[in-house]
């Protein structure tokens, strides 16, 4: 039991960072398509099973893996050229290590942390590795020995320097508000109530939330701050000279960095794994009621989804009857989940603790995917900022605003507490 609980956050880190990448690529395409009145990927299938198009991103990844790994002959620093994508990938991946996926769980005498790296210095770790991610881009652009690549990496560098300052300062105001730098304690703080609203970061500090979200977009080189890979001006920016899985690593790193930023935004500003108005203890003490609500929710959502699928899954591929397979799987899974939940509720020693932990994973996942949706939604709404506009926004607007926010926060906190 204890081994499982220690390994669980590590497994979840891999799930949230690596396994969600194909899903994110699929979301990116589908949401872009629906926003632009198109359909998106709906052809690629394995024996008739398309999973709504997710198979397409699996196929794309397979293509990148099996492509020839070539090395352009003009590249002098082969080591830096090869190591750059790994740095971008590793730092994006490691950023995830400190995110709390659920509250600390106490079973018997032992307490387990639901962070892959149970440290109190979570915010610092995030800042360190989010800043390190750009080294991969800089190194890749420089080692490529290509003017477009070096232009792209220079843009990325200047942008990250400018926005890292504002990001750090907006974080400082959050640290003053919460009075801690441990991410788990921050989430615990957000389970309180602020007048009638839940005391989420976005309610307490709307200005810091806006600054942090904007800088997170810039930090991950996502639109509208993706000047580093501005296709219309500099071919593909820093990864112009990269192909096959070396490009694939840059590509995956962008999505993992986006996921990590989304996870930190959820943790800092959207209450992390908490439901509004309910603390972890409330959930544990009323676990049976919570379980019934989950079962009702599962039944209703699967029925709604089946109705939606019957209307929209109209193009049959050769092979299995897709709609029938999905219907069977969803109904079977719902019944199985209900049976397991009622079994554990009746006859398992730590059912309520483990159940609440799983519920908090689910809540965190839902909030994280909402953030992913926002990232993608913004990308397909806003055009790219011009480069000087990016710099002006970072240095002239966000930096003074975040400084002013720190002063105001500090004054309010001192005034309230003393």
């Amino acid at each position, binding site marked *: 039991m204890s081994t499982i609980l220690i390994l669980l956050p590590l497994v979840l880190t891999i799930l949230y960072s690596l396994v969600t990448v194909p899903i994110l690529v699929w979301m990116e395409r589908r*949401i872009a398509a*629906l*926003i*632009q*009145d*198109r*359909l998106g990927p*709906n052809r690629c299938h394995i024996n008739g099973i398309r999973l709504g198009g997710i198979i397409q991103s699996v196929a794309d990844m397979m293509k990148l893996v099996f492509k020839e790994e070539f090395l352009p002959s003009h590249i002098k620093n082969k080591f830096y050229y090869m190591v750059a994508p790994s740095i971008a990938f590793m730092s994006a991946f490691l950023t995830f290590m400190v995110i709390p996926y659920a509250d600390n769980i106490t079973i018997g005498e032992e307490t387990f942390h639901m962070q892959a790296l149970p440290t109190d210095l979570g915010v610092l770790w995030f800042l360190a590795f989010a800043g390190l991610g750009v080294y991969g881009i800089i190194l890749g652009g420089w080692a490529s020995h290509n003017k477009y690549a070096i232009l792209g990496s220079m843009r990325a560098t200047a942008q990250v320097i400018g926005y890292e300052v504002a990001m750090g300062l907006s974080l400082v105001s959050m640290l003053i508000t919460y009075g801690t730098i441990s991410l788990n304690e921050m989430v615990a703080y957000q389970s309180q109530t602020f007048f009638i609203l839940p005391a989420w970061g976005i309610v307490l500090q709307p200005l810091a939330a*806006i600054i942090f979200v904007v800088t997170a977009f810039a930090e991950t080189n996502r639109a509208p701050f993706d000047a580093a890979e501005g296709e219309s001006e500099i071919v593909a920016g820093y990864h112009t000279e990269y192909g096959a899985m070396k490009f694939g690593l840059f590509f995956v790193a962008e999505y993992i960095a986006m996921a990590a930023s989304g996870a930190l935004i959820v943790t800092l500003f959207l209450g992390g794994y908490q439901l509004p108005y309910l603390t972890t203890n409330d959930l544990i003490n009323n676990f049976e009621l919570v379980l019934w609500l989950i079962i009702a929710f599962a039944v209703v959502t699967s029925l709604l989804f089946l109705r939606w699928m019957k209307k*929209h899954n109209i*193009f049959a591929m050769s092979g299995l009857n897709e709609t029938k397979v999905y219907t069977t799987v969803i109904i079977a899974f719902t019944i199985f989940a209900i049976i397991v939940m009622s079994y554990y509720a009746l006859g398992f020693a730590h059912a309520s603790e483990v159940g609440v932990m799983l519920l908090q994973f689910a809540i965190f996942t839902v909030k994280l995917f909402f953030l992913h949706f926002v990232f993608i*939604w*913004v990308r*397909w*709404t*806003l055009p790219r900022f011009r480069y000087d506009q990016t710099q002006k926004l970072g240095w002239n607007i966000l930096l003074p605003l975040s400084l002013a926010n720190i002063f105001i926060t500090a004054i309010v906190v001192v005034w309230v507490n003393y």
Partner: protein
Amino acid sequence: MGIKVVQRHGGTFIEKIYLHAIFGGMKTTLKHFTANLSDASNIPTICYPEQLPRDITSRYRGVHRLTHRKSDNTIACVACFMCATACPAKCINIVAIAREDGVDEKMPEIFNIDLLECVFCGYCVEACPCDAIRMDSGLYSVVGDNRESFIYDKAKLLSIKGISKEEFSLAK
């Protein structure tokens, strides 16, 4: 006419902080997203092999065809070489022979169109004095597995049916 004063935007405080406009844009895209997610049948995308294009009219320039005379159902072409002369791609190859049945003086013995060379400009149709060559077949997809199969000869061109109301040549 007086001077038209164009109202300039971007000066007010709300416009300067961008957020108002950004949320306005995001509202628009979200409206498209939710509308298409809840009812995908309004999306104009055509899933091609299963659904065929709906915008092929009789004026669409598809694969050429040679028309027949209404009186005796023989070939309308008189081998005047006007189409081959007008053709910018030089893809029409005609060999003329004398017509023995008394309907007209000449007819083509060979009438080949190389569809790999053709640019589908429609100049041959405009040049034709006899309404003998038309592009109203509505065929938008020409497939073959060797180069020779793209050279359409007289028999093939005569066998293609049109999608316009006039089946026969309109020439007097």
